[in-house]
């Protein structure tokens, strides 16, 4: 009897120990590159933060907005680690090295960086296959253009943005092989004034549908003012341009953020790379505008279903580059590493990648 009791006690003790060691309460902090009210990228992340905040073991979530990429970011991230936040998210490409620098100093803190490629034992990176949404929105743009000129306002010539432009263009060509996609770089994620100027310059050269890879709806507002169409980015932006808005590939970060929080809580979290596809729900397409014809709506729904079921790959050969050279032979498709380092434009894109 005594022995049984001792075993029971020991088991109980071990269980308690184990759960004390693993079941961790979370104090999370988010470092944003733009303001939460940007209506796009940062807004979408903050929605994900709010969803994570609902979890019972997440005791606190805070954010700091409009943090410049570079040395300023290091200070902000280090300050958060110093204050006792044990799970820190940094949500812009330029935060990668600052995050790694701080991660090396604070080994007990879990760091998650969005959109980069570096990891450490206590630093993971996470992202979604946003280009899948870009492709679907490209189908809509290709169907709606009459001038066969589509404008694309883009931030930086990094693989993420280039991949989006290419996937978008392949979507355009799915329904309209004659259409061209003109790209203008802004060198900023968040600068509504500059983004709008770039958008207007594209409208001036005859674009009648605009798309973009920026954090704000400024491009859509430019299209709205001129009575043209536009595709949003990151968040459902229809309220900013009710007539111009066609659709938008959008982020649903809550699935990623609740999963990461759960892993950290259970002690199963590791610093690893996560690149989730459309089937996880992290990437979605905003409901299409009524201006889009039914047959296009059906096509988009069909392609989306094929992507979810892995029946169709966007980057599958034959694909030619801008100069007409074969970039991907028939029957082949790009691997993840090739996709993640993409550095060329497909045929149909008009613009240059700075070399």
């Amino acid at each position, binding site marked *: 009897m005594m022995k049984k009791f001792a075993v029971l006690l020991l088991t109980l003790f071990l269980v308690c120990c184990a759960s004390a060691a693993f079941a961790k309460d979370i104090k999370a902090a988010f470092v944003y590159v733009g303001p939460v009210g940007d209506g796009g990228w940062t807004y979408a992340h903050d929605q994900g933060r709010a969803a994570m905040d609902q979890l019972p073991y997440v005791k606190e979530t805070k954010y700091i907005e409009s943090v410049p990429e570079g*040395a300023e970011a290091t200070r902000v991230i280090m300050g958060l680690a110093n204050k006792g936040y044990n799970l820190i998210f940094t949500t812009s490409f330029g935060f990668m090295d600052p995050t790694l620098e701080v991660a090396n100093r604070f080994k007990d803190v879990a760091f998650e960086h969005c959109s980069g490629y570096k990891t450490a034992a206590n630093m993971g990176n996470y992202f979604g296959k946003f280009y899948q949404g870009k492709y679907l929105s490209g189908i809509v743009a290709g169907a709606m253009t009459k001038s066969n000129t589509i404008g694309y306002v883009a931030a*930086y010539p990094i693989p993420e943005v280039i991949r989006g432009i290419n996937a978008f263009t392949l979507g355009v060509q799915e329904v309209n092989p004659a259409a061209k996609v003109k790209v203008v770089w802004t060198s900023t994620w968040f600068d509504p004034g500059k983004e709008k100027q770039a958008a207007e310059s594209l409208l001036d050269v005859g674009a009648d549908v605009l798309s973009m890879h920026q954090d704000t709806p400024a491009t859509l507002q430019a299209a709205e003012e001129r009575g043209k169409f536009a595709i949003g980015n990151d968040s459902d932006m229809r309220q900013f341009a009710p007539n111009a808005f066609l659709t938008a590939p959008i982020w649903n970060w809550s699935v990623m953020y609740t999963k990461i929080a759960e892993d950290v809580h259970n002690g199963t979290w590791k610093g690893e790379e996560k690149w989730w596809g459309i089937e996880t729900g992290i990437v979605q397409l905003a409901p299409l505008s009524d201006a889009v014809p039914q047959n296009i709506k059906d096509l988009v729904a069909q392609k989306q279903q094929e992507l979810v079921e892995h029946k169709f790959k966007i980057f599958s050969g034959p694909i030619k580059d801008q100069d007409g050279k074969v970039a991907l032979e028939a029957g082949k498709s790009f691997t993840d590493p090739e996709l993640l380092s993409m550095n060329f434009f497909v045929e149909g894109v008009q613009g240059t990648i700075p070399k």
Partner: protein
Amino acid sequence: MKLVIERREISSRLFRFSAPLVSIAVALFVAGFLLLAGDINPLAAYQEIIVESLGSRYGLSETLVKTTPLIFAGLGVSLAFRMQIWNIGAEGQLYMGAMGATWVALFSGIQNHWLMLTAMFLAAFMCGGVWAGVAGFLRARWQVNEVIVTLLMNYIAILWIDYLVYGPWKDPRGFNFPYTAVFADTARFAEYFNTRLHSGFFLALACALILFLFIERTIWGYEIKVIGSNPKAAQYAGMQTGMAIFGVLFLSGAIAGLAGFSEVAGLQHRLQHGISPGYGYTAIIIAWLAKRSAIGVVIVSFLLGVLFVGGESLQLTWQLPVAFVYAFQGLILFFLLASDFFIIYRPRLIRR
């Protein structure tokens, strides 16, 4: 009745020393209303700012890190102000200095740590100096307004750096993101106390001391003061005003260039787009508030460092929007300048 603005007669030592403190008190008082409007107890907020920026080894180190480029740039601008030369181009000179240092760090192939840092120092000094020297030459030779030239050259410098980091100097492994490769350890300053505090801060203090001695204890410093307050008299006394204007602008830009050196060698360890969030413009305010004194520049830079580093904590503690923090900081600067004005001048109603 008519409102006139006139210079105050009293200018006692006590008054001059208490003036900046009065300015700060008034600024904090008015900014307090903004905080009250956001439902925040101003005293709690100010306490938070102080605790955050000075209350721990970490906070203090970050404040000093922030202070460092402000001291360099502030010294550069205030030196020119001494001679009534308005160098608005510290931002561009900072960028050019950073470029010079980066060129040495990435492409010189120097292996020795001290030799490397010395070469980076000289390159930054020359690049910043030559950049401002252009405005100095134009001013001395043809009386071209240096305010316009230095200001516009900022844009050229910033775009030129953009060209470099997007193009030829781009990190080959950076996936097209606008920055250069990171520097080797030989091209980095030492860091202290397990914080980001780096040698640049001590270099800035040394620079302030040297400049102070230069202005107060040498004939050149004396000439600068004379030319500044009365150029005609200086000319009659046989001083070479043209040469002095060029020399002062060159030196002014060279010191601002050191801010760029210190930022890349001590903090960023690479050159990148947007390397300075406007230190060169803040430097104008610093030089003004510091009454062009080198020691004053150090003190004012430190106070602004407290304001910038501490202000950020308002965001985290109360989850205030960043725009609120900017407005708060802007209001403080505005009232510092305004109360400074009213300390020197006074408005008076006179009967017609």
